[in-house]
Structures are given as C-alpha cells and as structure tokens.
C-alpha cells in the first residue's frame, strides 16, 4: 500500500547500469548525475535491487560522491547471500541528492541496480 505521505511525481524515473561491485569496501559510481543542462538535476533513490550470489551475506552502502568518497545517505542495505534483495520506495528514506550516487559493499561481486527519480 502506498504511504499516505507519498508526494506526487516531481521527476522522471530512470534506472542505473547494473554494477558488479569490483572491490570490497571501495566506493564506485552507481548513478551519474545529469549536469549538462542549465542546472544540475537532483535525484531521489526510489528502488534498489541487489543480487547476491557471492557465498556470503553482504552489507551494501549507497551514498553520494564524488569518488573516492562515499557520504552515507541511507541505512546499510543488508543483502542475504543467495537472495534477490529488493527495496521499494516506501522502504527507502526520501533523500534528494545533488551529486553522483555511489555504492560500496563489504563483499565484491554483489550486483546492484537502482531506480531513481530525476528532478529538473
């Protein structure tokens, strides 16, 4: 059920590329900000998909860049091994970000994809 606090759409929905986390505990770009227009667009993280078949449970952190930094924006996503882990917008704090989204995991090989609402 939709949250009674859900706001009307302010932007358009887009998905990131699928990121195969290349190194443990190392931030990498997840969604690059669209910044070539008159003003840089902001994004709100709406959905997270994490597929973990690494053999170990993983803690995945999504935050804001730019690399090599990761500024934490959300609670850590705990991705169970062998599961298709998904979070939808009612479960994700509505944080508007004016930067690239970056991701890191304590286990390499986790696959991460997000859907964002991009706002102009």
């Amino acid at each position, binding site marked *: 059920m939709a949250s009674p606090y859900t706001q009307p759409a302010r932007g*358009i929905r*887009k998905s990131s590329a699928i990121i195969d986390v290349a190194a443990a505990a190392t931030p990498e770009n997840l969604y*690059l900000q669209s*910044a*070539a227009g*008159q003003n840089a667009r902001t994004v709100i993280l709406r959905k997270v998909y994490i597929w973990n078949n690494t053999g170990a449970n993983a803690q995945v952190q999504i935050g804001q860049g730019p690399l090599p930094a990761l500024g934490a924006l959300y609670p850590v996503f705990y991705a169970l091994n062998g599961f298709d882990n998904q979070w939808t917008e009612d479960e994700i704090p509505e944080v508007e970000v004016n930067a690239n989204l970056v991701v890191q995991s304590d286990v390499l090989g986790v696959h991460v994809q997000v859907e964002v609402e991009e706002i*102009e």
Partner: protein
Amino acid sequence: MDLYPFKPGPIEPVALPGHTVGIWQKKNYVFAEVLYVEGVPRSDPIEIDLGAIAAGGTSAIAQTTALSLPDDEFGQFRCFVVDDICAMLWQARPDGRYKLRTRNGRVTRWTELKDPCGHTTEFYVYEQDDAFHQALNPTAYALTQSRVAFYGFRYVIQEYAPERYRWPDVLPPQWTRIPATAHL
C-alpha cells in the same frame, strides 16, 4: 468564440474557415482568410530525430522540414520530447524562440510533466519558412536517439489584397494574430 494562440487545454484550432488571421512574418502581418482547417495527429512521420548525442553534448541545428507546408498554408504545432533531451526552437534559424531577455526556454521531459496539454510549447510555421530544432543531452550518458514529436493543425489560407488590408494602417475589424516568427 474563444480561439486564440497558446490556449490552455487540449489543442484547438486558432481560427475556422471564414475567419481572418494576421500572420507575423518578416516583421509584417500578412492578412488572410482561412479557407480550410485539418488536423495533424501526433504520429511517427511528424516526429523528428536529431540523432545520437554524446553525454553532455548537443546536436547540430536541423531544419525541421517535416513541418514544412505548401504555399498559402500555415501550421499550428505543439511538441514534446520523446527522449530525455532539451529541445531548442529557432524561427528563423538565428532567432531563438521561447525567448526571454537573457535566456531561451527549452522543451524537456519536465515540460510535459507540468504542462500536459503542451500549450506553452505552441509555435507556428508559415509556408516553407521552416522551424529549426536542436537538442542538448543533459545526461551523463550517450543517447542514440533524440526525438521531438509534434501535432496540431494546418490551415489553408487566401491572402487579402493589400488594397483591402495591410499592416499597420488598414486592419481587418477582427483578426487572430499568428506569431509565425518571434516578435523582435
């Protein structure tokens, strides 16, 4: 009857057969009677593709011949972007539309979000004085297509002889202004 350019709501003709229009063209109003009106539905042939654009790049400025009209006709069009681009309009080629003092408006995916009927995107084309379009890719990834879609109406007209009506001193009693170029 309230028929006028940029009317909010679903697109309507700005004039009907028998009505008089004044088409602003080359810093002069061309006065004409409307003989016939026909719809131009939003459809693939009336859509342009400004091509692949690198991340943050712009396309070439393209003559929008898809909206070109025969002699003694003008068109009324609204538009929206299909891909995530910022579309810019020129009429004539060096003269940007949606114009303010220091900036020009652009049509983006957000235009449709806030103006679903597209009335703020409306523009007019007179005969073969074509519009020109250019697209900016505001994103951090390359686009393979940059499409702009149009819909509206075409009008067949018959110009009045200059002895009858001429700008600016002998004007029709009632007429609709058609801004086919920017009013500089």
